[in-house]
């Protein structure tokens, strides 16, 4: 017998504020391959639990491949003799240039300057000093703007990082600038949240100039969602089998509803929801009325299992409206489900594009990319728009001048965004 133990020494990714309530360790998927690249075994190693493999049937060297959510892989060779045991360890020496930003590196592109000790003049964060930020929170069915208040902030040449303490509500961070299209990024409420802003190094033509990465220190749940956001289902499945994560996330929902939502999204994507008692999803929906995601999860569940009565269609439509009346989902996966639900319910009922259906259509058409976090373009959260605006709040202009948007940017929910406060990135302490 040949055994292989793989450990993940990523201690720098554990760096978090003392107030963090729902912290879980980082767990990353592993593949053991033979010399041909054939898959021998799959598993997961976390910073607290190593992975164990029986590789008795491997003839010759084995290769262990670790995959980050960004898609980057690290591979190590191991030679194990018959009856022997071997150990492989992946360490964070390539990502811990700054301990505070190490958590974000596995989610960024493989060439991120955050992982490099060399200065990249064209990727300096001070180019974005005049990027402005503003917080929005959903209270009494209205989006209200406020100034950005951080618990702590961090900075190096290539990134700014902000820590927030958020109550049990729907939260959005808005960013914009002369060359940065105005967009919102959803932040998970109910605890500590960290946002890292860094110049985008992707050559994807859709990429925005400033990358926004979000964590609430639920590293297992977030890793699962980051893989889902990139349609890396095999990696997500490996992560989810670890313990098994998704069922546990949902079963522990009363402790941490945000992680439970992540588990539910995974189960809906992989058809694992059929094995879960419906009451778990119902409880998640009933117990946390400040979260929009459980409503769309329950709505899609109802639709996918086949409605038995006309009444069910009304219930599903009502859940769709409830989701929007609670704000917006925290995660981008929720938006895909909103689209699915709105589209089939509208076509099945022959309804016009109005109300919730119209709202969802605008939100989907305005979607932006922030990994697993929901993100969308617009001037105010209640008026998502695919037309991208840049500039200061009082001097909004479209990225491509097709029509004037000054009127659009002012007339919304009674909030005059030209006079509402904002903070420049350079001024955040």
């Amino acid at each position, binding site marked *: 017998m040949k055994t292989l133990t793989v450990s993940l020494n990523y201690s720098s990714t554990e760096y978090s504020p003392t107030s963090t309530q729902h912290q879980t360790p980082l767990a990353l998927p592993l593949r053991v391959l033979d*010399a*041909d690249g054939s898959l021998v075994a799959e598993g997961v190693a976390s910073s607290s639990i190593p992975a164990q493999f029986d590789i008795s049937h491997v003839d010759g060297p084995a290769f262990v491949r670790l995959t980050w959510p960004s898609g980057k892989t690290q591979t190590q060779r191991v030679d194990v003799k018959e009856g022997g045991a071997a150990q492989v360890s992946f360490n964070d020496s390539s990502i811990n240039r700054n301990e505070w930003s190490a958590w974000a590196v596995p989610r960024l592109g493989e060439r991120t300057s955050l992982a490099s000790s060399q200065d990249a003049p064209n990727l300096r964060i001070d180019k974005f000093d005049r990027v402005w930020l503003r917080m929005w929170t959903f209270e009494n069915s209205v989006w209200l703007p406020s100034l950005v208040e951080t618990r702590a902030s961090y900075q190096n040449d290539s990134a700014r990082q902000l820590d927030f303490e958020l109550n049990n509500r729907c939260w959005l961070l808005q960013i914009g600038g002369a060359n940065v299209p105005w967009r919102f990024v959803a932040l998970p409420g109910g605890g500590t949240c960290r946002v890292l802003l860094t110049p985008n190094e992707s050559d994807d033509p859709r990429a925005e100039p400033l990358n926004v990465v979000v964590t609430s220190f639920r590293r297992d749940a977030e890793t699962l969602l980051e893989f889902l956001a990139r349609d890396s289902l095999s990696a997500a499945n490996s992560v989810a089998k670890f313990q098994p994560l998704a069922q546990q996330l949902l079963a522990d929902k009363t402790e941490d509803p945000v992680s439970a939502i992540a588990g539910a999204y995974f189960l809906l994507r992989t058809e694992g929801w059929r094995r879960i008692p419906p009451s778990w999803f119902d409880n998640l929906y009933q117990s946390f009325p400040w979260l929009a995601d459980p409503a769309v999860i329950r709505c899609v569940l109802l639709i996918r299992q086949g409605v038995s009565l006309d009444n069910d269609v009304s219930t599903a439509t009502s859940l769709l409206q409830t989701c929007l009346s609670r704000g917006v989902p925290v995660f981008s996966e929720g938006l895909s489900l909103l689209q699915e639900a709105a*589209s089939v319910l509208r076509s099945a009922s022959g309804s016009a594009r109005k109300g919730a259906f119209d709202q969802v259509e605008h939100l989907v058409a305005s979607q932006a990319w922030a990994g697993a976090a929901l993100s969308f373009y617009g001037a105010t959260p209640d008026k998502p728009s695919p037309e991208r605006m840049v500039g200061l709040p009082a001097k909004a202009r479209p990225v491509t001048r097709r029509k004037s948007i000054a009127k659009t940017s002012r007339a919304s929910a009674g909030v005059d965004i030209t006079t509402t406060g904002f903070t420049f990135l350079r001024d955040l302490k």
Partner: protein
Amino acid sequence: MTTVYERNPPVGPGVHVLAIGVGRYPYLIGGSGRLTNNPLGLAQLSSPPVSVKAVIDWFLASLVAPGTAGFANPVTSLGSVEGLASSDAPVSVASAGGVVQLEPATRDNIQDAFERWLAGLTSDDANIGVFYFCGHGVMVADHYLLAEDFGRSNAVPWERAFDMSNTLRAVEREAKGALYFFVDACREVSKDIALTLGANPSALKAVDLKKQVARRSTSLIEATGEGKLAFAVEGKVSRFTEALLTAMSGYCGVRGPGSPTWDVDGETIASAVRRLLEKGNKTAKRRQVSDQAIGGDSVPLLRLQAPPLVKVELDLIPEPMRALARMYLLSAKGVLHDHDGANGAFVTEVPRGMYVVGARALAQEFRDLTLEDQDLIPPFFDLTLQVQP
């Protein structure tokens, strides 16, 4: 009707293909008919007829000429192929029974072909459905695809389009096997304009909400990011379709524990297509990307006997040093592939796997360069070695 191929007898699970290419749009800009009131800035396309022919030829290749690279799945063989193409010049494909001329992709013909395809797809729980479309599309929240006769009526122009997104959602409730949707449609109508169009085309099948989602897996792989153009060189196979066919022609695949074959599922194809397009972006004037939405279990579309190949481009700089170097790839199994740098960069193809990659100086002009344990993952591996001064 254009049933290009139908397995006879139709027993056991099969892969059922519906392939549509629309290049001729009589009622859009440059068309032969009366210009519709709102052509959305859309004109004629030369690539879709060529692209749909390439796709159909690829699926039929091993039936027409055994041993040719193309569709291969010993567990789920080809069940049927429905094809439609709209072009000024007729489009013909060679099938096992002879040459078949494809009918035009009007909305009515698409509906008929879809219904035949769906009947075949639902005839066995283990069937796999492949839907391919190349032509104009409009992306709002859902994706609408335009048939040849789009705009024939100014009163109801969208009557001659169809809602691909809801078609997929309807099929998910009818079929129990795996679904592969490949959509190679430009989406250059901006989303803010698209939102004001009032477009509301019907799906090819209405979603029956009384039925539960029954399919085992869905893989939707689409050309370009939303709001971006799908690119093609005039009259050639589009970049997306070319990447798709390259990926499926032995340049991707995973062999699981104990599996005799290298399996190609939606996630594998999507990853390979994305990487091939990214590679093309390095030289193309305009960059193109792809999107995907993968759900459910992994059900392979292809099962290949041979390990997938990796296209390798190994170079060495500074250039004068390259002529003095012997570049090589040494597999973990001990197979050596080497190349004289005097002949330029090392461009070759090798089976996927683990390699030592390096360069040796012919007469010790520089210190040998060696990179151990390089994981050569299909579809390509490119690397430039740098000699330190």
